[in-house]
């Protein structure tokens, strides 16, 4: 162990340039059918000591590790890449690992809920299967015809740029579960599926655009989008989701007329 690690924790508060720490209260929506609460969801409040550099995920960790081990949530990489920990923080869908506590007003209790529109399994964990089902439906893989080339499939920088935005998706479901049309009956394909279809429809190497447009030209496809921009606002990767959906609509209209 190094000397710095052994330094008493109390001294850190007074050091110059030290990270400020503060008390923060998290109001978490719990659901655990096997507990005494039964099939009812309820709110639990926890107050923990957090640092200025801490994210909501750090606070959740602290609660789970030091206060209540029964609190359940998903996280894998904890660095905004895997898309496991999309939750609803203060009424907005965000990644718990990309949201700093100081950015969501720690003076008041911070509400953390599971993302809406998907069945809650326990606490903050939702069943993602319906979400992935509509993702699979749009065939998120390269479709080509003819012989495979013996080298890479080449593409110009401009051709790559055309769909660059939609390649950033991490399938966290923040967009789909922020969509009011998806909340109603969950039949809508959802923004994420359309974004990932967009990624292939506008890829010059892909030849499955017609099939994908056909799939999304559905009663529950792109035409249910009401352009409320909830998805664009929710996307932790900054994808212009609504724009992508409109581009798919336009491709369908130019194909039909």
């Amino acid at each position, binding site marked *: 162990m190094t000397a710095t690690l052994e330094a008493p924790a109390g001294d850190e508060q007074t050091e110059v340039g030290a990270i400020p720490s503060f008390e923060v209260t998290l109001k978490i929506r719990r659901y655990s059918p096997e507990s005494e609460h039964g099939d009812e969801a309820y709110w639990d409040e926890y107050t923990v000591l957090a640092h200025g550099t801490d994210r909501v995920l750090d606070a959740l960790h602290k609660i789970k590790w030091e206060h209540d081990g029964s609190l359940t949530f998903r996280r894998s990489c904890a660095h905004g890449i895997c898309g496991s920990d999309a939750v609803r923080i203060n009424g907005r869908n965000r990644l718990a690992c990309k949201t700093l506590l100081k950015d969501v007003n720690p003076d008041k209790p911070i509400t953390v809920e599971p993302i809406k529109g998907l069945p809650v399994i326990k606490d903050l964990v939702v069943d993602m299967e319906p979400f992935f089902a509509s993702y699979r439906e749009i065939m998120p893989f390269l479709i080509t015809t003819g012989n495979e080339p013996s080298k890479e499939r080449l593409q110009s920088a401009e051709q790559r740029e055309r769909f660059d935005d939609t390649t950033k998706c991490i399938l966290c479901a923040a967009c789909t579960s922020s969509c009011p049309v998806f909340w*109603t009956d969950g039949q809508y394909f959802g923004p994420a599926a359309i974004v990932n279809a967009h990624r292939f429809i506008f890829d010059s190497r892909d030849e499955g655009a017609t099939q994908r447009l056909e799939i999304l030209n559905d009663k529950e496809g792109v035409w249910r989008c009401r352009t409320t921009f909830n998805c664009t606002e929710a996307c932790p990767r900054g994808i212009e989701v609504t724009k992508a959906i409109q581009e798919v609509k336009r491709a369908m209209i130019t194909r039909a007329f």
Partner: protein
Amino acid sequence: MATSTRTSSSLAAPRSRSVGRGTTRGNYELYSWVFMRASGVVLVVLVFAHLFVNLMVGDGVKAIDFAFVGGKWASPFWQIWDLLMLWLAMIHGTNGVRTIINDYAERDGTRLVLKLALYTAFVVVTVLGTLVIFTFDPCPADAPANLLASFCTA
């Protein structure tokens, strides 16, 4: 503070319906989407010209009486104008409300009832309106002459 989640039993799981109900693909929603944009633009012209002619030109709103309407509907131009306005507005509005019902009705039963009411209202208004525009008699036989359009006495 415990409010129930909508996860258990009351709602079917998202996207569960797509299994075994046949395809819902087709150009219907595409055409309806395009129609809403196109009819919207046309209606802006039709409605504002209608308002201008009825309320601003000449004596303005004070000129509207039975004779005014009778005179307008004696001309095929205004018959077709009003017919277009009636049909486009009714289809545009009905399609909009249909969309809202699809978005907000959660149960199939609610959706069915609301849509039946909507389509009934659509048929009644459109059929009655069309009938009136085409069978309108600007010069009814026993009406007092001062209420009729000028061309009736001739």
